[in-house]
């Protein structure tokens, strides 16, 4: 009983012990915050990757593809029918995209993906990442009248967003307006227009008409009767990063909009390879918020791409594909299905991988980073442990006479040891408890805190233009938090073992005489 009473009194009267509590608290709070932010980033990243890649990917080793997707689908279904939730064949080909601004060509290298718009959204979250609400429901490679998102639909809180003013009129409205303006200019000044166009459409000064020559270029390509005011080329969905940049002000600036035409060049699937170049009309943007994907993918209808690349057998009409994206049932074991498919499809011709395999190095790097961070941060708590050791040794020296008194009153060595062990335990629990509360509060308001710090220092702590997240994502894993707290308490108790033993071994007479 006296152990608890004395431990409690020491806790209340020794303010130096607060130093131990503070150090344990800071260690625990830091670990909780860092872990939850790391978990948040990892989760966000994995969700984006998985959303982009599907669960399982069957690829042909040849970039020119293998024929006959339906029979492959049939075969996959045969092998792992129960586990399959959806499948979609695609064609991937490296391509160059040209955007023309004021007669200047901007070239961008990206992967052109031919997708089957009916099935593709069943294997990935592709649909969710589009900018037109109707396309999100069912993608059609047709230009919409208008109604493209001005505010990013993936961020629930609009107050955080800067509107994308350029998107306001994107679509047919913009295309017709541009075509009319073009026609008007040509009538006024029949010579080819080479100077910069004046800013158009009222207030939006940063938007210039980048396609002074597009219509005439189109005309050369497709014949004189192509009228951009009423017609479009084949539709293409661009990764938002291929034609936009985020300014220092956090605003997104677009160099092409839905309604604009772009030129895409890619090799034919023939020997010798032959480059072909097609015009496409941008019908939507794709924004997964993984800049790696957003800046390097463009999507066109599968059938169109197969036709353009000559991947369709003229006799049978059977198309080639380069990969099949597979979505699994939620409870399916991706690795088991992958291994089953590997047995069936010869490795010389096919590669079967899960999305984790595909992103293995990146995921491993993140995991490694988390582990190293945890080790380093746990060192902080260990340092706090040494602080406890030092301060406790001091307190034991200070309390030497009291220990002698307790022993003269019949307290055993274990009892005296118990005082200091429970003292350490109490410090650990209080420190971990306060640290837990602090860490969780910090985690809860991390974005507000980041904003505030940004305002104070004038330097944004979390720059959305770097991360493509508008908020710092956090996930609190109860298991990790428990583990952190238990570890901190254990370290506090361990650190008090030495001083407690020293106290227990004090000779009562020497202790009583201690001045």
């Amino acid at each position: 009983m006296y152990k608890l009473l004395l431990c409690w009194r020491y806790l209340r009267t020794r303010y130096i012990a607060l130093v131990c509590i503070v150090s344990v608290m800071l260690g625990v709070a830091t670990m909780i915050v860092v872990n939850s932010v790391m978990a948040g980033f990892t989760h966000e990243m994995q969700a984006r990757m998985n959303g982009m890649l599907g669960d399982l990917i069957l690829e042909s080793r040849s970039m020119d593809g293998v024929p006959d997707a339906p029979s492959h689908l049939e075969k996959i279904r045969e092998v792992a029918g129960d586990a399959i939730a959806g499948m979609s064949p695609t064609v991937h080909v490296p391509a160059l995209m040209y955007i023309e601004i004021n007669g200047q060509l901007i070239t961008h290298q990206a992967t052109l993906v031919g997708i089957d718009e009916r099935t593709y959204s069943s294997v990935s979250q592709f649909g969710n990442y589009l900018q037109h609400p109707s396309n999100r429901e069912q993608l059609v490679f047709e230009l919409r009248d208008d109604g493209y998102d001005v505010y990013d639909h993936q961020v629930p809180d609009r107050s955080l967003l800067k509107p994308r003013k350029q998107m306001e009129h994107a679509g047919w409205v913009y295309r017709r307006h541009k075509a009319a303006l073009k026609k008007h200019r040509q009538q006024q000044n029949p010579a080819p227009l080479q100077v910069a166009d004046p800013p158009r459409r009222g207030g939006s000064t940063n938007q210039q008409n980048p396609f002074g020559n597009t219509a005439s270029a189109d005309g050369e390509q497709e014949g004189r009767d192509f009228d951009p005011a009423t017609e479009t080329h084949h539709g293409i969905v661009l990764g938002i990063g291929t034609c936009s940049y985020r300014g220092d002000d956090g605003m997104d600036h677009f160099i092409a909009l839905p309604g604009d035409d772009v030129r895409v060049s890619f090799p034919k699937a023939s020997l010798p390879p032959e480059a072909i170049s097609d015009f496409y009309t941008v019908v939507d943007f794709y924004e997964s918020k993984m800049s790696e994907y957003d800046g390097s993918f463009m999507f066109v209808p599968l059938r169109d791409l197969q036709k353009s690349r000559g991947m369709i057998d003229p006799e049978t009409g059977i198309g080639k594909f380069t990969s099949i994206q597979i979505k699994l049932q939620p409870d399916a074991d991706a690795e088991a299905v992958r291994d089953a498919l590997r047995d069936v499809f010869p490795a010389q011709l096919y590669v079967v991988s899960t999305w984790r395999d595909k992103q293995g190095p990146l995921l491993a790097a993140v995991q490694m980073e988390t582990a190293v961070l945890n080790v380093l941060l746990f060192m902080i708590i260990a340092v706090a442990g040494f602080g406890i050791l030092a301060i406790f040794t001091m307190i034991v020296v200070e309390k030497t006479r009291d220990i002698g008194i307790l022993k003269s009153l019949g307290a055993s060595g274990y009892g005296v040891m118990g005082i200091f062990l429970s003292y350490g335990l109490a410090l650990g629990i209080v420190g971990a408890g306060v640290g837990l509360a602090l860490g969780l509060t910090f985690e809860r308001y991390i974005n507000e805190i980041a904003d505030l710090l940004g305002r104070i220092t004038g330097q944004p702590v979390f720059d959305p233009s770097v991360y493509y997240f508008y908020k710092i994502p956090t996930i609190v894993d109860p298991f990790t938090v428990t583990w952190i707290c238990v570890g901190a308490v254990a370290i506090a108790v361990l650190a008090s073992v030495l001083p407690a033993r020293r106290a227990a071994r004090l000779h009562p007479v020497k202790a009583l005489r201690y001045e």
Partner: protein
Amino acid sequence: MSSLPVDISQTAPWIKPRLAQQPQPAVELLATRDLFKSYRKGPLGIPVLQGIDMTVGEGEFLAIVGQSGCGKSTLLHLLGTLDQPDAGEVHFEGHRIDNLPGRSRDLLRNRHFGMIFQFYHLLPELTTLENVLAPALISESTLGYFLRRRQHRRHAMELLELVGIADRAKHKPREMSGGEMQRAAIARALLAQPRVLLADEPTGNLDRSTGEQIMGMLRELNRKQKLTIVMVTHDPWIAEQADRVVRLVEGRIQKV
């Protein structure tokens, strides 16, 4: 503070049958046989006690006097099992106690020996009442203490009344005078109803009149409660008030 208003034997009968209830005449309660003790200072052993043979009768008030450094405090510590002799034996109620295992000696100190010291030795973090309760706090488990805390507190309050500082129960030691602290220390020593009270210079740090009050209280306890008291002092005037005086000179008992 000349009389004892409360008969302790009535207040806490659960602890131990009291000495006062045992009607035997004075018998040997504490005894030492040829006790040796030296302190080590580097390679040299400094002899402190050199063959002490001594008995303390039941109900006796014994004073041990001697100059500083003659080993009288060491002898008291050996009697109270706080220290162990290099040679010789200490007997309590006819049983040898100097070689008992640590746990048994802890129990002995907790239940049968009350100790008071020159510098009072109260715990500064605890109130007077809690200090008096300390032996009970030590002997009881947490649960046991909570179950019996009313009895313990009542008993402690009675002891505080007995020593005349019941109004100081909530005060911390540093808020009290030396005499009050020594009274609190006496109350603490009496809580467990000990068989013997070991007093190490109980008046050494007090002025004359306060010292006399404390001595009066010890005499009362000895006379009315038949409490055995072994007191160490260097002050002949204080020693005179005991039934018997043993003089220590250079670690040996000098016959008076």
